[in-house]
């Protein structure tokens, strides 16, 4: 009796101590993540700076009605989804190709250097990348206008005013920044393939290319499926820096660079349209939430180990 009482006390003390340890983190997540979740009701209010969030008047679905009446809603949704789609397809194919080539070169010392140098752009901030793109594209002193186009005899283009080439520019910058990171993920998965499979294929006389298509890629399939599904789950979110810093917030380019994230930022900070901005934010959160739930349930069915929950 005395023993169990003692262990019971000890357990209670242990639970209490562990809770105390977790407390700072709990408080942080409550403030940083949970309180803003309840703030989504702002999307249903006509926000007034003087009245504050609680005293501002309710307006039902007015903000949403306005939002979806504008062309902006369509443009930002289209851009967000299409860019993500391009990133998933082109990015994944390129990352897999790079990973396969590096894996085939095996343990040669230069592979380490390739990996290190390809990853470096991933560590630069979007602000610095904005400067780099500016060094290439600005009208007066840019490398493209002053050197490339000059050599080709083409007259200078004011890049930050011309929407047409921007889908390509955005995709190139995205690939440049992310290919190193993504290929590392695939390389680790290639490293896990049973080497006897290749030996067997070689004995059967399969060429290198055939080995890649018949062994490597089929074995990579689960990883590819899961990474693609997870990306689809995040298709409603965009990398704010890519669409804000790289085009230098240029208004002339909004038709091809506006995504939901840049719209929410501009609504809140530049146009002071809190209601509309909150409505767009809620639209993103809700659709994003549903997409994550759907894709995760598919992932769980394929491979429960890799499901988020």
């Amino acid at each position, binding site marked *: 009796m005395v023993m169990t009482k003692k262990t019971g006390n000890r357990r209670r003390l*242990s*639970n209490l101590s562990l809770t105390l340890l977790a407390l*700072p*983190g709990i408080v942080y997540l409550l403030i940083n993540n949970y309180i803003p979740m309840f703030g*989504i009701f702002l999307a249903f209010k006509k926000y007034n700076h003087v009245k504050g969030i609680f005293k501002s008047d309710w307006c039902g679905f007015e903000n949403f009605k306005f939002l979806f009446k504008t062309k902006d809603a369509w443009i930002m949704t289209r851009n967000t989804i299409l860019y993500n789609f391009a990133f998933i397809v082109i990015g994944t194919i390129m990352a897999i190709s790079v990973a396969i080539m590096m894996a085939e070169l095996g343990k040669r010392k230069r592979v380490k250097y390739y990996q290190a140098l390809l990853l470096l752009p991933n560590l630069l901030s979007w602000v610095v990348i904005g400067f*780099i793109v500016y*060094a290439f594209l600005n009208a007066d002193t840019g490398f493209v206008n002053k050197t490339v186009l000059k050599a080709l005899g083409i007259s200078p283009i004011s890049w930050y005013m011309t929407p047409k080439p921007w889908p390509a520019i955005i995709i190139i910058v995205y690939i440049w920044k992310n290919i*190193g990171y993504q290929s590392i993920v695939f390389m680790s998965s290639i490293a896990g393939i049973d080497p006897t499979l290749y030996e067997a294929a070689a004995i059967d006389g399969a060429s*290198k290319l055939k080995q890649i298509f018949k062994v490597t890629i089929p074995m990579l399939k689960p990883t590819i499926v899961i990474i693609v599904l997870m990306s689809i789950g995040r298709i409603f979110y965009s990398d704010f820096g890519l669409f804000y810093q790289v085009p230098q917030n240029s208004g002339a380019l909004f038709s091809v660079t506006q995504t939901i994230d840049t719209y929410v930022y501009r609504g809140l900070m530049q146009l002071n349209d809190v209601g509309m*901005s909150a409505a767009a934010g809620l639209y993103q959160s809700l659709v994003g939430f549903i997409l994550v739930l759907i894709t995760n349930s598919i992932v769980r069915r394929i491979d429960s180990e890799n499901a988020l929950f």
Partner: protein
Amino acid sequence: MLESKTFNTVATVILTILVCLAMLPILLIVIASFTEETVLIRNGYSFIPEALSVDAYYYMVKQGTMILRSYGVSLFVTIVGTCLGVLITTMLAYPMSRKNYKYRNILSFFVFFTMLFSGGIVPAYIMWTRYIHIKNTIWALIIPNYLVQAFNVILVKNYMQNNIPASVIEAAQIDGAPEFTIFVKIIMPMSVPVVATISLFSAIAYWNDWTNALYYITNAKLYSIQQLLMKIMNNIQALRSNSTATFLGTGSVDLPGNSVRMAMAVIGILPIVIVYPFIQKYLVKGIVVGAVKG
């Protein structure tokens, strides 16, 4: 065998080209920062400039108070944010990893749910500025978004579950060690690899962050290096379009010459490039672990 050799040659050629393409943009701004200003105005940014000069760096050393200050802000934010964040993250992850902790499941769900749903920036912005009054304080660069991230918590939790045997903790409990002592004396030392990984990612995130500055900082005294770069670029754009409407925020920054702009961008990436050879190995390991969820 011969065929495998051709494949290797082709792979080497393609990868070499890709690596060059990855490095050239960075090289361009480095070369531009060492190019003479008059040459830049005449020929633009170029890989093979007519005349080199260190004037841009000389100018920065002479005019350096603003740059030095913003460097100090970035350094402070990176160090304090990383240390504080990693400590709180580890403290939160440890109870989640303990199988006999009563609130384990609730806590895990509480952390995990923040990865699924977010209230978005609008309510968060109003909360931080109107109710917590974080605007134009150094904490605005440290606390919102980056301090504790669910993904890192789960990474640490998984590591502890897989690498710290329950018997070690039980033995310490039998010896009568209180939970805090166990955490500090046993758990922390045994978690060094994963703590190193999340510290690295956290430090890079803080050094590179500009979004908190964009939302919460208008006071030039609190400019981080990223925000200083951002302001310079804004002013260049504003000058080009000849309108003041594009001026964002209030703190304005002198407009430096073409080479100085690029020299500042180089200064902004310098710390990362310097530590990169030493951290690269751990980064790659961290990416692999993160990708397959620990």
